[in-house]
């Protein structure tokens, strides 16, 4: 019973790390391409998130099962094969939930297969950890990816004038927010914000420890 609770706590920690504190996009600089290139409206962001979740969870789990069985050098190819296999149902799912989204994404959707978050997680993390941790990590990364994608999409829609904020009436809608550079600039600021938060957290943590041990 106690073991289970520990496991659960560990899983929650892994999930939170993946989603926020060690966000793969903002801290690891992985998988920036889909967000920079495609996350410029909410629909795209939603489709990307669904695709990511539907690709990363099963492939991580499969790799967790098979990873240790194949030689180390073959693992990258295996990851690619597995995620390619899951891409078809994932695309179907995304299309089902948000009709027309995959074709709207175009090239970006196809390139989700070799997304570097998915790749590094499935190749390095999954084979060497237990299934619960892998699932938590995969879910956390998906949540983190989705969070960043939605944030970026929100800001860029406002910028493009697709969503008008109540207090910014008459804001001159600009173009070019759908270009990758805007995504990178936004990611830069989001990453800075996260780094700032993490530093604050680390400082609080250190202070708490110091208070406990005078």
């Amino acid at each position: 019973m106690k073991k289970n609770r520990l496991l659960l706590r560990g899983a929650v920690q892994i999930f939170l790390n993946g989603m926020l504190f060690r966000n793969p996009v903002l801290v690891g600089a992985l998988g920036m391409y889909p967000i920079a290139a495609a996350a410029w409206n909410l629909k795209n962001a939603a489709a990307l998130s669904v695709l990511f979740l539907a690709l990363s969870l099963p492939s991580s789990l499969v790799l967790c099962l098979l990873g240790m069985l194949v030689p180390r050098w073959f693992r990258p190819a295996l990851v690619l094969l597995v995620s390619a296999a899951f891409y078809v149902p994932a695309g179907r799912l995304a299309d089902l939930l948000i009709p027309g989204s995959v074709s709207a994404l175009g090239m970006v959707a196809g390139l989700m297969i070799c997304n570097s978050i998915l790749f590094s997680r499935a190749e390095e993390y999954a084979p060497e950890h237990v299934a619960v941790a892998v699932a938590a990590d995969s879910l956390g990364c998906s949540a983190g990816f989705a969070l960043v994608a939605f944030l970026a999409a929100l800001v860029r829609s406002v910028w493009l004038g697709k969503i008008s904020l109540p207090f910014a009436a008459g804001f001159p809608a600009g173009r070019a927010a759908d270009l990758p550079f805007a995504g990178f600039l936004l990611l830069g600021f989001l990453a800075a914000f996260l780094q700032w938060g993490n530093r604050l957290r680390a400082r609080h943590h250190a202070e708490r420890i110091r208070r406990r041990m005078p």
Partner: protein
Amino acid sequence: MFIRLLLTAFAAVGAENLLFTGGAGFSRALRCAQRPDTVGIYALLVTWFTLLSMFAGVWLDPLLPVSGNAGLVRASCFAAVAAAAYAVTFVLLRIVLPACAEEKIAPLLAPAAVNTVVLAMPYLRRSFSLDPVQAAGYALGTGAAFYLASVVLSHALAVCRNPDMPQAFRGLPASILYLGILSMAFAGFAGGRVF
């Protein structure tokens, strides 16, 4: 023919730069830039895989369905080809190269093969409707662009970690901003057009 190849290669470095204008492959380029001594080998491997992937696109494209749900299969097929290319290259290198060289190259092989830049090739061939010669030129040019991006980034990383910066921006956030501004400069080539 050679001139056409060269022209497309230049286009791939300049106006139709997949990395800067399209924003692809920067995760890898950043990783690559952190180890400046391997940039050359890494870029060579990336060029090799882009070439392979591009020609897979050239040969497989007529065989595969394009639209609708069947389009999903297309993407899967290209990914499977990339996986095969990786495996074949690995085996080839193991046979050809001595052990010491292989030890150096092996860790670079996987990230060079499984890469957005590599997998994007067949799509770009289709959207730019390149003939085989141009396709080769484009793949070579993309490899060169990857090399240039990594070299520029490896120098930029030093700028992005100086003592006068705000703590929050030190390191990665500043590097991403750097990428953003550089990508913005290249967007001046294409205007509002995206791939």
